[in-house]
């Protein structure tokens, strides 16, 4: 068992969060230190988890820890943690985004203590979700992400922040309790008394198809709202537009990934029968999300809204790659989650910076900003190009893999997402053309110049993985493959 690195990570984030809350104006230093420690711990996790490959039905083994928490004759709950390649890559994403967000919001002057504390709590919850191996523990971390984000939006957000925060909370809370019921049905109908993942993954796939299908529907709803899948997506634009920049970065970069991770780990791996039975529904939802996100994004004038809708589009591709149900598809899905995490993080940062610098995010009233703010313009360029899937940036291998897997599975249907991707490329190109080139429009706010150092540094933290893993996606792929994905066809 060795060193309980996962518990240490969670504990260090918790201590950091608590310290930030009381540190007042020095909270940013506490938060930075905590984030750096978290990065180091993530590296340690990679070293510790380099284990054997896993087949479907197997449990993540890296850094595993188990302690008994509640013990009744009919119900055993464990504090059980463990990671595999999928979790590790997403924890890595958490580390990048956490560090970037903290650095980016270095100058937060409105109640800095709670601000940094809540960000660290969000990270804590996410790491917990990515590593929990017990139904109750998973649910606790899942909900634990909600609460800090509720306050981040509600306190630091835009004019309609209270409405957005409440909507976000209600939507995701309803979804999560439905998910919990689904998982509990799995536990008890498979004749188990333990909420442990290993017990679940050993028994649940053997349940009758009807049970599996009903449970899968509940789980699809539960995780789909977080994704967000199109009929359940309406909380997202509100939450994103009203959230402060740091909140948006975590929301898009991290919270949406919880949905994808949940669907893979706690959905299709537990009820493969139900999933295959209802796969057409998943395809339809994926196509819907891809199309809807893209078309609506095209009609947006607010830069942040545009990025938010493009998130729906990208997460739709993730769902499509999951729906394909192949080794390649799942690999691409996880890779794309990582890619979208860093890219959308960067894009939300630049739209935040555009807002700070020019006092507006309205694309129609901005233009030709490159001469005045070259660094910002470069970042917009990198973010947009990465988002539209330019080769040598991190999204390309992921999207390529997803589309390839779709083609292998459903042949010419791949044309739907492919054509929509052209639209996606179009709206990013259109945005760049409006914003970066042409005659200057929109005046910088009084005394504003190119970005302050911390905003630059925050963006730089995210550019590193965008470029690094764009050129060397193999690094991530090797890690991701060290998971149950490997057992798929």
């Amino acid at each position, binding site marked *: 068992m060795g060193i309980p690195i996962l518990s240490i990570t969670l504990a260090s984030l918790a201590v950091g969060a608590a310290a930030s809350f009381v540190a007042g104006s020095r909270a940013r230093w506490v938060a930075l230190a905590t984030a750096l420690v978290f990065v180091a711990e993530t590296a340690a996790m990679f070293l510790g988890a380099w284990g054997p490959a896993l087949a479907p039905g197997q449990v993540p083994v890296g850094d595993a820890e188990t302690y008994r928490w509640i*013990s009744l004759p009919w*119900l055993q709950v464990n504090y059980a943690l463990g990671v595999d390649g999928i979790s590790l890559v997403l924890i890595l994403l958490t580390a990048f985004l956490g560090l970037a967000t903290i650095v980016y919001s270095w100058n937060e002057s409105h109640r800095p203590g709670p601000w940094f504390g809540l960000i660290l709590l969000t990270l804590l919850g996410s790491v917990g979700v990515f590593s929990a191996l017990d139904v109750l523990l998973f649910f606790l971390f899942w909900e634990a992400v909600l609460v800090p984000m509720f306050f981040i939006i509600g*306190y630091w957000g835009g004019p309609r922040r209270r409405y957005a925060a409440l909507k976000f909370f209600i939507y995701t809370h*309803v979804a999560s309790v439905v998910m919990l019921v689904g998982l509990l*049905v799995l536990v008890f109908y498979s004749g188990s008394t333990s909420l442990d993942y290993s017990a679940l993954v050993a028994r649940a796939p053997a349940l009758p198809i009807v049970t599996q299908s009903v449970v899968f529907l509940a789980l699809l709803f539960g995780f789909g709202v977080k994704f967000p899948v199109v009929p359940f997506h309406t909380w997202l634009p509100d939450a994103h537009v009203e959230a402060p920049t740091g909140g948006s970065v975590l929301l898009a970069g991290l919270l949406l990934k919880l949905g994808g991770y949940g669907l893979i780990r706690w959905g299709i791996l537990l009820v493969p029968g139900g999933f295959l039975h209802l796969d057409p529904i998943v395809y339809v939802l994926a196509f819907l999300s891809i199309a809807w996100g893209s078309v609506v994004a095209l009609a947006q004038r607010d830069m942040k809204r545009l990025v938010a809708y493009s998130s729906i589009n990208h997460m739709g591709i993730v769902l499509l790659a999951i729906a394909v149900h192949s080794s390649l598809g799942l690999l691409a899905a996880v890779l794309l989650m990582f890619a979208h995490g860093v890219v959308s993080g960067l894009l939300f940062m630049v739209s935040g910076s555009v807002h700070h610098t020019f006092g507006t995010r309205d694309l129609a009233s901005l233009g030709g900003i490159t001469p005045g703010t070259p660094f910002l313009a470069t970042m917009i360029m990198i973010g947009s190009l990465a988002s539209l899937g330019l080769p040598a940036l991190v999204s390309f291998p992921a999207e390529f893999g997803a589309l390839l897997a779709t083609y292998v599975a459903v042949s010419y249907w791949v044309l739907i997402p492919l054509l929509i991707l052209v639209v996606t490329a179009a709206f990013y190109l259109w945005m760049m053309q409006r914003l970066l080139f042409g005659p200057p429009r929109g005046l910088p706010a009084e005394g504003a110049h190119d970005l302050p150092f911390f905003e630059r540094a925050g963006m730089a933290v995210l550019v590193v993985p965008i470029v690094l893993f764009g050129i060397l996606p193999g690094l991530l792929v090797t890690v991701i493959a060290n998971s149950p994905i490997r057992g798929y066809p």
Partner: protein
Amino acid sequence: MVDFVALLSTFLPEVVIAAAALLVFLLDVLGVRRTEVTAGVSAAASLLALLFVVADLGIAPFSAVATLPSGLLDSSPASASTSLYAFTSLGLVFQMIFLSATFLVSLASASRPSAEPGAPTFFGLLLLASVGMLFVAVAADLIFLLLAIEITSVSTYLLVAYRRRDRRTIEAAMKFYIIGALSTVLSFFGASLLFGAFGTTNLYAIALAPATPSAALVLVGYAFLLAGLAFKVTVVPFHAWAVDVYDGAPDDVSAFLAGGTKKIGLFAFFLVFLGPVLLARWATSFSPFGLGPFNAHPVFQLVLGALAVLTMTFGNLLALWQKEIKRMLAYSSISQAGYMLIGIAIGTSPAIAGATLQIFAHVLMKTGAFLVVGAVAALGIGPLVDDWRGLGQERPYLGVAFALMLLGLAGIPLTVGFVSKFVLFSAAIQAEGYFVWLAVAGVLNSAASVFYYARVLKAMFFERSDRPAAPSNAGRLGANGLGYGRAAAIAIIAVVVVLLGIYPGPLLSVMQSAAQHFVLLGP
């Protein structure tokens, strides 16, 4: 010849509380009217009685005990079937719950002004009501049970009305009294029908009755009992009185009513209905109204399950529309009763354990919530949600405490309210069949309830107060104007709510084994 010494030692907790009640009245007569003294007597007595009960349970506090000593039930079902009372471990767990409510309310009321007319009477009545509650928990006979409920009821009618000059409380007391009398009549009528059918009013004897002589009589009798007890538990459609009474009663009394005395009705539900719910042996020998063989077992479950869903949905829907905090809490209390009924409808030991924890959680959170309401009212802040704007920033201590209570009531994780609902709904799913839908209904209800709790939190933490200035403290009261007693009670509750939310294991184990005993031994 009755051995009085033995009898007294058997009923040690009850004796302690009754003696304290008499002492309080005596002190009043002797002219000792300082609230601190009477409150101290009341709190100390309930704490002492609580210790006796815990000792009876044979558990050292905070140690994880998987099973209770099996000799705990003094009387086997056979001997209990001729007795008026029987000590079951579940009954003791409930005594624990009741006494904690009494203790908390006594502590919190220590800061009420001594000059208030009838202040000592308040504590005397509180203790008398507690005596009744303790007897409910050990009842083995229907008449004993109903009389014990009556002791509590009569005391609480007076408690609601003890502020004699206040028209609002008098109106509430009148409503409470009339409805209470009606429910008593219904219950006793039901009991008399059951006596006609079985020739006994002993619950154990009824449960053990080989065949039911007159099925129609039994069904009608249980229907009347159900109606009578449903008033006490505020089951929809027998709930209408509760909101007016909780709203009109003084805040500490509301806390005691919603948090404490309402729960005796639930334990009475356990006693009265687990017989028919658990005993499938009635299934075959049952032919009401000459309609041929009829399986009463699922019918009881269905009726209770339907009432549970109706109660929680209705309570939640109405809570959504409330503008006054106290009325919102009252409706939320109704909906919470619905969750507890789920456990009774299912009747398995996990479900009973879950319902018991839910009852305990509700005692803590609802008592705490009403105490905060009382504290806020004492600061001169109005009763509407809008009046509470910005309170979380002005009074972080009260704000955070109230937030914890509401989060617990909403079933948000890391509070005991979440754990209890989690166990209860897990038990429903574990029971399979259509009980899963009870769990789904419960879960959706609890998710919907977040909405109205969150509205209050939003007002308290996100919105600015439009009050001219922070209201002045009452001055003579310590702990920031709240009074030390009330502040302490609220703090204790808040800590326990979180503590049990994080580490519920030992308590849950005790409740589980108590529930197992209960199910094994019959009603």
